[in-house]
């Protein structure tokens, strides 16, 4: 009697278990079936990289999705991450504020194109009572960041700002603590204008800073600058505009003191540009250009036939790039980004036309 009961229980239990397994299995198959259905319908491009153009890209990709039905998924993981993901071939395109280094290019295995999408600039901001509009020359900025100019009433600062009475306070240098394209632009500029900076520090997204405090991100730097009397730091132009921070004008290569604006940032690219567009716009010889400017790029492989990508995907990518450098430019200015200059668009067109699939250009 006992045994009989037991076996009946067992059978009952087994039946129950089978049913459960079946049920779970059906659920799973329905789930995955739905997923694959959804995937088949939507054309999608995947990108990752720079955080600086992220607000602009989100806007662009949203509009693009509505216009063409191609969904673009962009993850703002930072320029370094974007370059890594492109090299690992896990994304269709990367976003970067920095030009890829020779080492990265070698690792990439094939030619990688840098297609500019917009320009941004870096402003010098400070905390002084009365928020005077100050003028700076390149050597002053470099020497402050090298720790050689220590006081606000240093004779070199007062010489270019005769109309402002500067206090006898220490300058507290504030820089970015996180790796960023902003630091890259800023340090590229300093490396160009100061031989000492180039030898001692160099340029890159993260540096071995000779002096100063670090703040995380634009808000971190802005917070420290606002908190510390006598501080001197750098932030993105967009951030300074949105937060009404004081900023200085900088003397450019042609000797003009230029106020950082969206227009003067675009104008920095009104100069002879190389065909591959791997150029940083700092300290260009554009007469009305702001010297602390830089492009942000989309990086893609020139030969799109890799990792078993279908030709349609490559075509979608090229169409997207064309749209971003033409119609998409209209979304830049409302979001405080500097649109590409005429020269830059022409160069970008040539680059996009050179993208190929199995050796044949995709765009005719």
């Amino acid at each position, binding site marked *: 009697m006992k045994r009989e009961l037991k076996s009946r229980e067992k059978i009952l*239990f087994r039946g129950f278990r089978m049913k459960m397994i079946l049920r779970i299995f059906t659920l799973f198959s329905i789930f995955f079936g739905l997923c694959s259905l959804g995937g088949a319908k939507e054309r999608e491009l995947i990108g990752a990289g720079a955080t600086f153009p992220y607000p602009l890209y989100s806007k662009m990709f949203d509009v693009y999705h509505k216009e063409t039905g191609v969904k673009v998924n962009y993850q703002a993981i*930072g320029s370094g991450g974007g370059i890594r993901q492109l090299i690992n071939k896990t994304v269709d395109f990367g976003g970067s504020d920095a030009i890829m280094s020779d080492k990265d290019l070698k690792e990439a295995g094939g030619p990688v194109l840098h297609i500019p999408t917009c320009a941004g600039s870096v402003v010098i901001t400070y905390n002084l009572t009365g928020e005077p509009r100050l003028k700076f020359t390149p050597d002053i900025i470099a020497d402050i960041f090298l720790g050689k100019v220590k006081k606000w009433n240093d004779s070199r600062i007062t010489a270019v700002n005769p109309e402002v009475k500067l206090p006898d306070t220490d300058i507290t240098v504030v820089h970015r603590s996180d*790796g960023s394209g902003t630091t890259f632009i800023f340090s590229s500029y300093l490396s160009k204008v100061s031989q000492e900076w180039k030898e001692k520090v160099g340029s890159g*997204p*993260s540096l*071995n800073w000779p002096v100063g405090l670090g703040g*995380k991100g634009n808000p*971190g730097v802005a917070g420290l600058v606002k908190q510390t009397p006598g501080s001197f730091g750098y932030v993105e132009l967009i951030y300074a505009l949105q937060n009404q921070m004081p900023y200085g004008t900088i003397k450019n290569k042609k000797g003009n003191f230029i106020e950082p604006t969206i227009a003067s940032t675009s104008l920095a690219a009104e100069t002879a540009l190389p065909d591959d567009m791997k150029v940083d716009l700092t300290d260009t010889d554009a007469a009305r250009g702001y010297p602390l400017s830089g492009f942000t790029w989309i990086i893609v492989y020139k030969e799109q036939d890799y990792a078993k990508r279908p030709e349609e995907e490559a075509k979608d990518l090229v169409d997207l790039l064309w749209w971003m450098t033409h119609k998409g430019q209209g979304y830049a200015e409302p979001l405080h980004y500097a649109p590409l200059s005429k020269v830059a668009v022409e160069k970008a067109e040539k680059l996009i036309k050179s993208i190929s699939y199995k050796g044949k250009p995709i765009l005719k």
Partner: protein
Amino acid sequence: MNHTVADVGIPMARSQMTQRYKWGISEVAFRRFLYMAGLILLILLVAIFFSLVVASFPALREFGLSFLIGRTWDPVRGEFGGLVFLVGTLMSSLMALIISMFFSLPASIFLGEYFRHGKVSAFMKSVIELLAGIPSVIYGFWGLFLLVPLVRVLEMKLGVAPQGVGIFTSSLVLAVMIVPYASSIGTEVISLVPSDLKEAALSLGATRFEVIRKVILPYAYSGIFAGVLLALGRALGETMAVTMVIGNSNFLPKSIFSPGNTMASVIANEFTEATGRLYLASLIELALVLFVVTTIINILGKLVIGKMTTRVT
């Protein structure tokens, strides 16, 4: 199960049989589940360690032990040493621990001995637990906008460079953050001190303070220490709040007010934009060092707890 049935002496009804049978299954299944869960955790820990070692291998090979004593962290030239961050991490965490003890210990005694029940205690307990639930970025902003100016005033009075941010400020923020961890465990163990011990001391004419000092604290020592250890683990790994107030400058701190940097904060700051194998590997090696430091401190703590427990019993 058999026991109860036999004791009660009622013939087994069918429902009870089923009950017993089900219990049998779930007993085995549950035990297996527990083994599995334990094993997975263990594997996870070992796997994390090994993946850190593997990923940091280029840096381990390039710098060897000099990574631990190198003071330069230069991503442009590819020269990496982690001493500054190691010192920053240990200094800020230990200082935070010392500061937090002034709050967590009294709080534990207050809640574990003086006000064990009632509205005051319930309110206090939930307030302290709430401290643990505040996101660290909020602590960071609080530190940046409230503590930094206060610390600057203090620094001006003391005659050191009035930067406001620095290791001392980050220790203050950390101290507040870790109070709940130390105090909630402390409260638990203090309230577990057997009342006959306390009553015995009281009957001998001890005052309440003497009872706390001579009976409760010695008895609960190891538990309190365990709580402190948990808090230290939290402090070592804290990233966001620290990075906002520590100053992030890569120099060896000259005093407790100097700006510095910690391992967790430099990893969080630089990982996204790190390119190049050696740079990435060096950042991961920092993570490895942090992992090892945390482990060593935990093991040391366990040893101390073991010693204390034997001494008391």
